């Protein structure tokens, strides 16, 4: 298989405009003859479904939640980047492009990233027109802030709930199309297989989560906007229901999965408090704009603190190590996420961690409160401080917060070309579900940007090109391909229900998560990864022998839902390990201990690894097949990332 990224010819800045002109159009009167399925209704899915409806296509949209408004995009806090340069501080499309490619440690595709930066400005206009209440200045114009490693203020925000406000905008656009009858919405419905006819994606098989009924839906094209796979780790900042099943089942049908080992560990999360923990809570990294990260200078002080012999306020200024400010004077506390996370781990590995477990560092607002006053800090971060206090029972205005990194985002995902089409014709992947824009590390406030860019402004153009070239005949769900897929789904369900073993689904999920966190988390090495691979295989075998799923298919059965998802995580986890093992370099969120600079920074190998690793499924337990898409950098010079 040759991976053709279909990047248009011509200078970087002209590619997208040229491509938009060159793509085929579907005549307005013919659009109603084409059906599009959209799976997932977060930012990437809701925006695409609404826009398809507006254009005149017939859309069916699916989500497993009870309402599209609950998709996990809702939980994004910090903001959304756009190269508006409203602040006159030197931002531009090229600078946002450059920052994103560099921040991704040169493992993203230049053309896609440039397009992302270009359409970023349209997103803000669109959202404001919908009534999204972004933060404003007293003059009535939009406010911006600097965010997560950027040296310009290009982040638009809506208090600490930018994700909710943007999603409500997309949800309102979606609702309008539902009311018009252009979009048919299927909530509490989960995609469990992809249906292919003549090598093309022509539909999906879903399970109604209330009745258990397995149903087929046919269309001319399928868009997966199903989010990331961070829940492989069990503990992550993802929502409990976030899963990789739709993407993984498409992978099993032939869609290549790219860079699965590129996962992002977010530095500012609330530390784990006990083994009952069900998820981790992220606090926006905007906190790092004013909070100072530190640990005690010596292991002895840290030990005394952990034992409760001293309190944090007993530690004198000169006994504190503001390690990010010390090591990275230019960026200080605002270094990119992977750098901040890894340094927190290093401090804890040295024995200087805080909190009862020793797996935490301080994020201290005392100086900011002294400088600006408590009301100013409360105005900026009040909701985050309240959330922290609710969860930990500690007051962050009086005591520094304790934070620790947690799995947050997955840069890897289904391989897509410039048109966001996967290796299966007619199957698209948008938002976090694809791999394309963030390389090996995503910059803060760029996930919301990508989800909406893909959904509002990219896939509505590119899908037209595909549909215009295909006949509009519909395929009946009585077609043997649908029946085969339905039987496949029922076979998996029946198998899960029939095992009647002794261990619960969560039990297996937690065991998988621990393996992934310990050996394929913030730092990886060949020996650990080989061990992890063997452990995952053992665990997967045990799952299919000993999992306990109660109830029946024909009911609301949350255990069965989880069992399907964990079965897929048990395969995806192994692929992540394979990918991490094969990539013998460090880049962004992928840190191989064998490949680091003398100063413990990630050491890339551009000679041998400047490519996208796209994996082909060859059967459960078989070695997947690697395909490479070479990355060409014509507009950005590859350098060792330095934030010093």
């Amino acid at each position: 298989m040759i991976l053709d990224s279909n990047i248009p010819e011509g200078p970087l800045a002209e590619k997208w405009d040229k491509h938009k002109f060159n793509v085929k159009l579907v005549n307005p009167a013919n659009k109603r003859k084409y059906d599009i399925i959209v799976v997932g209704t977060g930012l990437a899915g809701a925006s695409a479904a609404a826009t398809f409806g507006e254009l005149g296509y017939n859309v069916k949209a699916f989500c497993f939640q009870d309402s599209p408004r609950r998709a996990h995009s809702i939980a994004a806090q910090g903001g959304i980047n756009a190269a508006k340069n409203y602040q006159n501080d030197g931002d531009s499309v090229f600078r946002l492009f450059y920052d994103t490619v560099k921040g991704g440690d040169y493992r993203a595709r230049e053309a896609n990233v440039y397009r992302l930066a270009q359409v970023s400005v349209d997103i803000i206009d669109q959202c404001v027109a919908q009534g999204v209440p972004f933060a404003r200045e007293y003059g009535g114009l939009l406010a911006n802030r600097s965010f997560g490693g950027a040296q310009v203020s290009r982040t638009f925000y809506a208090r600490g709930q930018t994700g909710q406000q943007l999603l409500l905008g997309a949800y309102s656009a979606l609702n309008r199309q539902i009311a018009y009858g252009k979009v048919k919405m299927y909530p509490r419905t989960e995609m469990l297989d992809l249906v292919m006819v003549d090598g093309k994606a022509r539909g999906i098989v879903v399970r109604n989560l209330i009745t258990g009924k397995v149903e087929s839906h046919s269309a001319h094209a399928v868009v997966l906007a199903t989010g990331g796979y961070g829940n492989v780790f069990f503990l992550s900042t993802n929502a409990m229901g976030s899963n990789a099943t739709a993407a993984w089942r498409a992978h099993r049908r032939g869609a290549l999965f790219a860079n699965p080992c590129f996962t992002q560990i977010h530095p500012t999360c609330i530390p784990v408090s006990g083994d009952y923990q069900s998820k981790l809570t992220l606090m926006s990294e905007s906190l790092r704009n004013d909070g100072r990260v530190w640990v005690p200078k010596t292991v002895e002080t840290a030990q005394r603190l952990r034992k409760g012999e001293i309190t944090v306020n007993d530690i004198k200024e000169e006994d504190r190590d503001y390690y990010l400010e010390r090591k990275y004077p230019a960026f200080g506390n605002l270094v990119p996420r992977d750098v901040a996370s890894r340094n927190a781990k290093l401090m804890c590995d040295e024995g200087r961690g805080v909190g009862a477990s020793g797996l935490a560092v301080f994020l201290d607002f005392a100086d900011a409160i002294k400088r600006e006053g408590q009301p100013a800090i409360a105005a900026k971060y009040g909701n985050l401080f309240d959330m922290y206090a609710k969860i930990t029972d500690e007051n962050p205005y009086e005591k520094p917060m304790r934070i620790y990194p947690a799995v947050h985002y997955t840069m890897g995902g289904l391989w897509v070309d410039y048109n966001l089409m996967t290796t299966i014709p007619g199957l698209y992947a948008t938002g976090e579900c694809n791999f394309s824009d963030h390389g090996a590390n995503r910059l803060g406030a760029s996930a919301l940007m990508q989800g909406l860019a893909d959904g509002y402004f990219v896939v509505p153009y590119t899908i037209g090109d595909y549909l215009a070239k295909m006949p509009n005949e519909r395929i009946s769900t009585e077609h043997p391909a649908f029946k085969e897929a339905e039987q496949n789904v029922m076979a998996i369900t029946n198998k899960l229900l029939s095992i009647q073993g002794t261990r619960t689904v969560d039990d297996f999920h937690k065991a998988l998560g621990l393996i992934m966190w310990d050996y394929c988390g913030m730092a990886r090495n060949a020996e650990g990864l080989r061990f992890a691979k063997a452990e995952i295989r053992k665990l997967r075998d045990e799952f299919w022998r000993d999992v306990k799923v109660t109830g029946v298919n024909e009911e609301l059965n949350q255990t069965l839902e989880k069992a399907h998802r964990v079965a897929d995580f048990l395969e995806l986890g192994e692929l992540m390990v394979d990918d991490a093992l094969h990539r013998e370099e460090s880049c962004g969120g992928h840190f191989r201990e064998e490949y680091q600079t003398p100063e413990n920074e990630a050491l890339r190998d551009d000679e041998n690894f400047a490519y996208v690793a796209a994996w082909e499924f060859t059967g459960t337990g078989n070695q997947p097949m690697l395909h490479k898409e070479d990355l060409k950098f014509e507009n950005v010079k590859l350098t060792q990332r330095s934030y010093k």
Partner: protein
Amino acid sequence: MAGSNPNAKPMDLTLKVWRQKNKDAAGQLVTYPVKGISPDMSFLEMMDVLNENLLRSGEDPIAFDHDCREGICGACSLHINGRPHGPERGTTTCQLHMRHFKDGDTITIEPWRAAAFPVHKDLVVDRSAFDRIQQAGGYVSVNTGGVPDANEIPIPKTIADKAFDAATCIQCGACVAACKNASAILFVSAKVSQLALLPQGKVERQTRVENMVAQMEIEGFGACSNTGACAAECPVGISLENINMLRREYISAKATSENF
């Protein structure tokens, strides 16, 4: 690993949980003891512990809605000891921690109770009526593309902040569950206010309020009798001012509408 409060002792509790097989079945409260609950657990983590125990003994675990567990998605919806989202003000169930309960407590857990929110199973209810109300007019009619530059629509900060306050509704339905009439007026008013305050929403303000209120009535929500229970129990603090605003919008729309 110890939590943030190493002195907190594990608790033993008695739970009385609403169990109902499906929407047509009769339901009942079933008693379950739970032991060794850490005060640092969230309420839903306590439910996870109970469910794991039920599963291990081969019993059907308790179905409940939950997703983000960060208080923003609005999925969680438990009626705890007679109050939506439990005893803590301004807190969703997922953000409620067990430190607000005492060793030996009996806790009653029920689903939202409202005719417009039929029970699917156990503690899971059908809130799709809320989606249909939003579909009736909770939007600004703009297509993707062709919109003015964002800064061409200046909005005074005070107005933007007020609209924002209304926009923070998480669509959980606690307002309905708290109301003795199961009225959805606080929910509807939040969206009506947000869009009526903003210049972008003013064009359609009349039809919006008429259509959303009409849909609310079709869905079978009760009438508002001004007790204010909705705002008192709202986990994100949606204010009663929004209901006043909705009424002004509604009267003004009706006074000029052909449906008058």
